[in-house]
């Protein structure tokens, strides 16, 4: 993993590959790139902890993370995946922990930035609804099998 920080152009290029941001306006993408902060996590490090108040959304650029509730492993996520959105939307504590399982680079977006974008960019809202609905279906299937 490189240690240089990403320019806005590089962030835009990275975000363009994330399904959550497909089809959003150029203006929203520029705002996202300017607002998103880059964070590196070492393998084993916790990125968010269950029960904490959420402060933002994370997008995995490189590496891999594991979503955990208590000792339950809920999912592994990789480049292009996102997490942390629920606490941003409903302002409730994190319902799961997320731990880096490899050296991982994320872009993070503060809650208020995401909320503002959601209220102005309908493509982003629609993508996020699709993402949540997909998770509900996956959890439902996991639950029944």
């Amino acid at each position, binding site marked *: 993993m490189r240690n240089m920080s990403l320019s806005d152009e590089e962030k835009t290029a990275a975000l363009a590959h994330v399904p959550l941001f497909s089809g959003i306006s150029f203006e929203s993408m520029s705002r996202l790139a300017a607002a998103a902060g880059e964070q590196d996590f070492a393998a084993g490090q916790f990125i968010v902890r269950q029960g904490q108040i959420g402060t933002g959304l994370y997008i995995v650029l490189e590496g891999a993370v594991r979503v955990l509730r208590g000792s339950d492993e809920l999912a592994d996520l990789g480049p292009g995946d996102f997490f942390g*959105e629920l606490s941003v*939307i409903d302002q*409730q504590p994190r319902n799961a922990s997320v731990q880096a399982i490899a050296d991982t680079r994320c872009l993070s977006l503060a809650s208020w930035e995401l909320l503002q974008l*959601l*209220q102005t960019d309908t493509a982003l809202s629609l993508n996020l*609804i*699709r993402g*949540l609905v997909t998770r509900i*279906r996956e959890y439902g299937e*996991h639950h029944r099998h």
Partner: protein
Amino acid sequence: MSAMSQQELFDTLSGLALFADLSRPQVEAVAHQMTEESYPTGQRILRQGFTGTGFYVIVEGEVAIKIDGDEIARLGKGDFFGEMSILLGEPPVADVVTTRQLRALHLGGPELEGFLRENPSVMYRMLKSIALRLRNANRWRS
């Protein structure tokens, strides 16, 4: 179920969480974009495994959500269903059956995305409601 005048329908819709941020003229516009439908008790509106038939907002009455015949939830006034299948382009994973006479607003599947884009405040309310659903789904699992 007694017949509801247009005026009563608009009043009722204004009180639903999904439409809470709309002005009165916007509520009326939404009511015109959707079709008002009534169903008797015991009618299956969505069918597990079959291609979706639309998005529904419950105005009055109640439905049961059933997977493989087991009831997993009930929905009432102000709740909505059918959007998951439409947005994912997959058949419903549950049956939706009326447990009481139902009055609902219906929107055809292909129209949902355009409808939400035209009504961002409705989409934002839907997003919050679906987030709550995901949180509850998580809770059931743990």
